[in-house]
């Protein structure tokens, strides 16, 4: 009895505890900053607690099935239901979201960006968490859309109020780009409803899989959804909002944007676009793959042209999300497993890089790499952490980044059997070049910021090394980067079954060979471990 109730409430709690926290925070007078901080910490910890409970109770042998499902009435007039659930694909992302938010609250403890006002900042952060967690558990297109949009306003305000000098431009650009994408996405959802089996249920639509659509209609509808997701990822050529948003956003905003918000787009491809319209996806795949590798190279070259540390990390996000999208474009279980690993790894590593960049700015009041230098002598611990993250980000084996990048490249060697092998092998080569460039720009940044001697202007400055709050916020991420690097099966084990169930359906739809081996172990590492 008790467990049954728990399994019905768990996901709703994970989504709405932050909303409750936001309401409570609003009721606290603004002057009582300590109370605000504690409410935020307790709320996010409680949410994480619920998510950990879900992780413990999750049946990993059936990760291909939706668990903790709730399917209640919501808006009957439009046939939209409150249907939520997690499977092996969404579980890691939900966990990442709950985990990173707690660390953001801890990091913020004494790092409030100007113009201060922790109360408003916390409310926005908690509302953001509602949207993020909700998006990852929604199994109804309209519910998904609502959560997908809820994240917009809080991030808009985070950038616009607490951001850098060019914040107004960056915040509105972020908003308009995403809003345009999601408006088109909504039209796509509606078209699916009317052309399909008159339901918004993602599970039902995935079973239907676009069967009685004419091909041209399916391709158009996929295009509408592509716009929504690709802008969010962001893929080249829709990426231009990202460097601006990241550069201007406050540290915590950047971390949440990189770690979670970008994943809403890639998750949308995996959860919605591919399974519901596999045949259209097959048509789009070479094009998506092309944009992905252009993104990889363009992002890398963009990095080399930056003088601002944060902007460089932002461009590196464009490149990294290119690897993720390349994995998705192969439409194989191997590629999509790699993509999900890439999402989590990028979330941890780039989130961490933005944390460090934030602390560097906090200390030096600049992120201009020409003015920085010698971090290793002035703040050795921070310097080493930066070095560690750079290594993880460039895909050093043994750290998490490797398992996102390397299998994604490898998956392009053998895309779905109905896709052109030559095309994807070309992409593979280009993407491989991208990894070299990635090593180039990341090491270049490291040498500029951490190596050498401090510049004259900061020679006598008092630089604080990593403090207790930073350690508390960062250490869990660093440990997880190592853990996932050494035991990638921690994650592949969760995602593999779910991905296989999905890709097998896709393969069947488009008449391609299954990309899963018997028993579902498709990831080569899983066999070697």
């Amino acid at each position, binding site marked *: 009895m008790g467990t049954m109730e728990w399994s019905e409430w768990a996901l709703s709690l994970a989504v709405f505890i932050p909303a409750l926290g936001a309401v409570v925070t609003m009721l606290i007078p*603004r002057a009582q900053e300590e109370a605000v901080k504690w409410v935020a910490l307790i709320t996010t910890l409680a949410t994480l607690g619920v998510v950990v409970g879900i992780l413990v109770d999750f049946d990993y042998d059936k990760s291909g099935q939706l668990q903790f499902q709730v399917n209640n*009435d*919501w*808006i*009957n*007039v*439009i046939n939209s239901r409150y249907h939520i659930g997690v499977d092996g694909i969404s579980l890691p992302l939900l966990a990442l979201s709950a985990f990173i938010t707690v660390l953001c609250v801890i990091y913020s403890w004494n790092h409030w960006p100007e113009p201060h006002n922790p109360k*408003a900042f916390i409310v926005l952060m908690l509302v953001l968490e509602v949207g993020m967690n909700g998006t990852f558990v929604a199994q109804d297109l*309209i519910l998904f*859309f*609502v959560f997908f*949009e*809820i994240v*917009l*306003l809080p991030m*808009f*305000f985070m950038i*616009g*109020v607490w951001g850098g000098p060019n*914040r*107004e431009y960056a*915040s*509105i650009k972020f*908003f*308009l780009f995403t*809003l*345009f994408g999601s*408006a*088109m996405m*909504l*039209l796509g959802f*509606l*078209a699916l*409803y*009317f052309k399909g089996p008159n339901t918004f249920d993602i599970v039902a639509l995935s079973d239907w899989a676009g069967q009685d659509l004419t091909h041209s209609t399916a391709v158009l509808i996929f295009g509408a959804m592509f716009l929504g997701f690709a802008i969010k990822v962001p893929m080249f050529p829709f990426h231009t909002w990202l460097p601006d948003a990241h550069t201007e956003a406050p540290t915590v905003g950047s971390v949440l944007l990189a770690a979670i918000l970008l994943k809403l787009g890639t998750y949308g491809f995996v959860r919605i676009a591919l399974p519901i319209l596999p045949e259209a996806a097959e048509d789009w795949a070479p094009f998506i793959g092309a944009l992905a590798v252009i993104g990889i190279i363009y992002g890398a070259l963009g990095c080399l042209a930056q003088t601002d540390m944060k902007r460089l990390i932002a461009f590196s996000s464009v490149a990294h999300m290119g690897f993720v999208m390349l994995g998705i474009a192969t439409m194989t279980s191997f590629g999509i497993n790699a993509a999900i690993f890439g999402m989590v790894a990028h979330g941890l590593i780039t989130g961490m890089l933005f944390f460090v960049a934030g602390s560097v700015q906090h200390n030096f009041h600049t992120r201009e790499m020409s003015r920085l230098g010698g971090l290793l002598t002035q703040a050795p611990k921070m310097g080493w952490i930066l070095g560690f993250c750079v290594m993880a980000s460039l895909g050093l084996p043994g750290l998490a980044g490797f398992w996102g990048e390397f299998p994604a490249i490898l998956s392009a060697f053998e895309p779905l059997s109905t896709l052109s092998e030559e095309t994807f092998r070309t992409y593979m080569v280009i993407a491989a070049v991208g990894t070299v460039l990635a090593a180039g720009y990341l090491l270049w940044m490291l040498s500029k910021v951490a190596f050498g001697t401090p510049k004259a202007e900061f020679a006598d400055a008092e630089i604080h090394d990593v403090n207790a709050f930073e350690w508390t916020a960062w250490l869990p991420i660093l440990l997880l980067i190592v853990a996932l690097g050494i035991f990638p099966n921690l994650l592949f084990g969760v995602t593999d079954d779910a991905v296989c169930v999905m890709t097998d359906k896709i393969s069947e739809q488009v008449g391609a060979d299954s990309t899963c081996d018997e028993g579902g172990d498709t990831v080569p590492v899983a066999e070697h471990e």
Partner: protein
Amino acid sequence: MNPVFDWHALAPDVILVATIVVVLVVEFAFPRQSRTQTSRIAAIGVLAALVPIVSLATHENEAREMFAGAYAVDNYALALKAFFLVVTYITILLSVDYIDEGDYYRGEFYFLLLTSVLGLMVMASARDLITIFIALETISIPTFILAAFRKHDRQSNEAGVKYYLIGVLSSAIMLYGMSIIFGLTGTTTLSGISDAVAVDATTRPLLAVAMFLTLVGFAFKVSAVPFHFWAPDTYEGAPTPVTAFLSVASKAGGFVALLSIIFFGFRSPNAADLWWGPVWILAVLSMTLGNLAALRQTNIVRMLAYSSIAQGGFMLVPFAAAGIAEANGEPFVADTSFEAVVIYLLIYGAMNLGAFAVVIAVARRTRSAEISSYGGLFETSPVLAVTMTMFLASLAGIPPVAGWFAKFVMFRSALEAGGPWGVSLAVIAAVNSVIAFFYYAGVIRVMWFKEPVTEDRSPIQVPGALTGAIAITATVTFVIGVYPQLFARVGELAF
């Protein structure tokens, strides 16, 4: 034969008439001090009129018709009457302090306001061209005077005169169209017209002219582009509570008239064929040009005026979609489109009134409607800033506040009608809703990102009535956004 009066069905209108009389008598028969009571009397009267509506709605009766089918009290009429009364109640809350502090003619204000509302009440029930016309004039004439109520202010005078001239012109055009319809069909009742139009296809060219003229008349009333030019000047010049009333209730009156005429009179494929094209064009022009003009405004009332023109365009989208569906012989699809109009109208009412309530509250401090005067509102009055953000986000259609559901049903109707015209309409509407966000966000940015402009940084004091108006509209906007089902029933009931 004596006409049959169903007093229960007429009760809301009768209570309103009684209230109007009492307000008028109190104004001239009682000493000046007691005249402050007129607002209270008006508010109580409006709430009292809601009671029989509730009892009628819960009564499991057939639709009640009177006067040879010219006046019907069905679910559609009841839903709209309830909406108009609630809007009026909120308008009174917005007006109380504005009128008390502004040295205006108090009793006349509420007398005129309620008379206009009487027109709205009749409009909801009107099923006959003549009744519709009378209702429309009853709505309009008091508002001509209300628009010019700040009589020492030149802008207010301009507002009244412009509104009056355009109102008379549009009535004349509409009446001309209606007279041709009568000539063609030999009847003024909408059901009779519907029968005649469905059978007879020989008079199509003349019918097209008649419908076009009627449509132009309504386009003026609902300020659809290119018949919109009076609206920004009138809205800016009129007292702000009156502007709120004009942009919500009076506009809704025009839409309801259009809805009744089309839904009860011109639904047959024969006629739908003729009107959906012009409506499609009106919708596209209103959305696009309304939005583009709104982008350039520096005065928030003018901005909201253009925004209401654009919102009117969004409301015309389901109309056009219904026409496309009817022309394709899919009346079920058209039904949901008509529902979408009603849902959009009701949600628009809540969020737009809310936005005006905040405008009135802020103007108490700043005495200005310039958008720049909203600088730092989040610093000085966070509650006002957050509620205003909610209303603007709702107008822009951002979940989880109500506007998204209105936009959603609008998109849905266009895509359900389908075909190249339906899909292109949906895409144009989607692009427009992105453009619209830009100017709503403009105000949000000023409130949140800018420094306060005034020396005085204490929170703005908001009087009780105004607080009530903001609280009601904010609650409705939020609750509908999170749980639209609660409210979608109203749209469903209406048909």
